[in-house]
């Protein structure tokens, strides 16, 4: 039954997509819908910019994690030195 459920959700998803396209089919003709489309386009650009920033921030976080690890290693060296001193 789980296979059957998977097939049903797969088919339903496709039907959902087709309904979306059907609703968008004539949007080009209506000026109001056209402006909404343009607004969506603008919003997508803004969200892409945010995602670019997030990607850079995560790369920066990876570098910071690397520096923290290096710092920990040198602290361990210091600890060994003090132990040796003792």
């Amino acid at each position, binding site marked *: 039954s789980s296979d059957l459920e998977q097939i049903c959700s797969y088919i339903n998803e496709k039907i959902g997509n087709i309904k979306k396209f059907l609703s968008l089919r004539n949007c080009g003709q209506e000026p109001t819908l056209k402006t909404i489309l*343009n607004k969506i386009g603008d919003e997508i650009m803004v969200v892409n910019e945010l995602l670019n920033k997030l990607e850079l921030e995560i790369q920066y976080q990876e570098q910071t994690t690397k520096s923290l690890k290096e710092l920990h290693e040198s602290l361990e060296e210091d*600890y060994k030195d003090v132990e040796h001193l003792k």
Partner: protein
Amino acid sequence: MEEEVDKLELMFQKADSDLNYIQYRLEYEIKTNHPDSAGEKNPVTLLQELSAIKTRHQILHACFKPIADEQKETKSRICATFNKTMTMIQNLQKQTDLELSPVTKEEKMAIQQLK
């Protein structure tokens, strides 16, 4: 029974290919009626970009947490190593009656920051 199952399978495959064809025809019609122009994208392109954005967000969201957790763990390890080093130095100080220079303001702030 098996024959029935085969028949059902064929029906699903037929439904799947029909749906694919309908979607293809709709996309084609929308793209031809509303070609992308400067600044104006057609709905199909926008839908594709929207799903790409959702995928990208999921990937970045999945990246973020492990890196933050790793940083937290490394920081706690740094604190632990620092504390044991300082404890040993203070013990050595006692044994050798060697006075260390007083903690500077900057060092006090740093200790606060570490805590």
